[in-house]
């Protein structure tokens, strides 16, 4: 057991290290990294001065070691546009993105799981057809379109919710739904497969033979077993929600990390972009790790095959 944990942890660390390295060399391969950090209209003298000030005139190996060293100390560098540490910027924006992702998770879970269960139990019935159509639609619907439609209908025409910004508590409703719709489809599919798998098991037949009502079999016995894959998928979906927030935040002018990233790209503030992407990558890898560990804790059989 400890060996399995250590192995997975090591793999995750390698992945994080790999992402850092990839980003570093991406910057260097694409041309002069100084150009990413100065305004479009900077003069050659300014660029040269900047290069020396930032240490880009030193050998690449030295720069790389310093870059990795700083990241290991959680130093994401400074924003050259706003002249404050990137970590500071991230700290002010992070709560908004977490709130949004949390709201979206509630939506995705609250709608997706019941739909998935219904799809499995009422398989082949008209209601299952309708719901599976809904799931497919949710999956093919671009977030930015559903978001705009919601702003149009509920924000502008009906006036039920503020169309954008984050000044009131009700502001979070529409962004959460827009972001949650995509994960809703994933949760529905996973729940459907999980319940279908469990329906074939012996204990369900035993329940039937004992004369238990279907409702009781499902709620008392089946859902507990079916929850295993759902829990692990949740961990992975949180990573997707955080990434999807980039678009949703832009549509709703929600002041989170996604909006910060897009503003940073427009302002050519590369350190900020790099900081957010690294944070997102580390979070995603961490959640992957948690999903793996959860799965192995709940279902020890996974560990056996972990050697490969």
């Amino acid at each position: 057991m400890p060996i399995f944990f250590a192995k997975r942890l090591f793999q995750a660390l390698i992945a994080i290290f790999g992402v850092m390295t990839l980003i570093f060399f991406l910057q260097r391969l694409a041309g002069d990294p100084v150009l990413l950090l100065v305004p479009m209209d900077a003069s050659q003298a300014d660029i040269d001065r900047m290069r020396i000030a930032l240490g880009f005139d030193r050998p690449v190996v030295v720069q790389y070691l310093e870059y990795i060293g700083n990241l290991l100390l959680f130093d994401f560098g400074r924003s050259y546009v706003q002249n404050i540490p990137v970590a500071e910027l991230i700290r002010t924006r992070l709560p908004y993105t977490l709130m949004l992702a949390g709201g979206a998770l509630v939506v995705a879970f609250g709608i997706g799981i019941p739909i998935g269960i219904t799809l499995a139990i009422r398989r082949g019935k008209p209601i299952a057809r309708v719901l599976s159509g809904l799931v497919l639609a949710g999956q093919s619907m671009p977030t930015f379109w559903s978001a705009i439609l919601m702003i149009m209908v509920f924000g502008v025409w009906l006036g039920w919710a503020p169309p954008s910004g984050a000044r009131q508590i009700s502001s979070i409703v529409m962004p959460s739904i827009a972001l949650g719709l995509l994960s809703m489809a994933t949760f529905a599919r996973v729940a459907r497969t999980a319940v279908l798998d469990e329906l074939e098991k012996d204990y369900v037949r035993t329940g039937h033979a004992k004369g238990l009502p279907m409702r009781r079999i499902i709620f008392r016995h089946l859902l507990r077993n079916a929850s295993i894959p759902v829990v692990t998928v949740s961990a992975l979906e949180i990573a997707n929600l955080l990434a999807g927030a980039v678009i949703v935040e832009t549509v709703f002018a929600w002041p989170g990390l996604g909006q910060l990233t897009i503003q940073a790209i427009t302002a050519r503030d590369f350190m900020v972009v790099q900081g957010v992407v690294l944070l997102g990558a580390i979070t995603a890898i961490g959640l992957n790790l948690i999903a793996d560990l959860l799965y192995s804790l709940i279902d020890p059989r996974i560990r056996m095959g972990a050697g490969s």
Partner: protein
Amino acid sequence: MSAQPQPVTPAKSARSFDIPWTAMPFLLIVAVMVLLAVAAPLVAPVDPNTQNLLARLKAPGTVSRGVTYILGSDELGRDVLSRLIYGARISLFVAFSSVLLSGTLGSILGMVAAFYRGWVEIVIMRLVDIVLSVPAILFAIITVAVLGPGLVNVVIVLALTRWPRYARVAYGQTLSVANMPYVRLSHFMGASWIRLLGRHVLPNIAGSLAVVATLEFGLMVLFEAGLSFLGLGVQPPMASWGAMLSTGRNYVATAWWIATFPGLALFLLVLSINLIGDHVRDRLDPKAR
């Protein structure tokens, strides 16, 4: 995904190339969009970039200076329908070329990794794991931040972000094919690795790769639109559905048609591709049901 068994009789399926009637409308949607995209200069009512400042933000059906704005006009008085048709070009071009590029790159790397083993395998498959462990949109964003936006760069960005999907499938499939007696024999007889992979391995794994490619195609359409929506993709004045949606977002209160129609087109295209992709998967790869 919901893959209900299709009640198709053998005689009927042979005639209709195994396409169930429920998939036909979606196939038709894709076909029409491809045709419109190819023939855009012929079918578009007016030039997509011609501005008419006297006919700004006109509702669908408005006639101005002899031009009928069937789906309305945008903030610069450009015809939404014409931009929609030209936008199909961008969407399909980007999706097609990025699938082709990432598919080729990923398949080759995956096959080579499985065939050579050793450090080549470790390097390639580690890289696959790393790229796949980060949400694709984040990788796309940092790559755009470095390379800059633009049509060609979007294709490059998508290819760089998505090749691991193909590499993983190609790798797994090649591993199972590489030990087949005929492949080993061919190796003993001195076939070059290009011939070996191209003649003996690739035909055996092409089906699985085609499944991945179809499902990826829809995703690439969404990605291009998403990047263009964020201002990181195709740059103005080029008509892209994502960029049109971004403009439309600013006019939701006054001009609903600007955002509604490109969104609808995007939704229909992606939905159709996903449905067809599901079907292709069920046909070519029954295990994945």
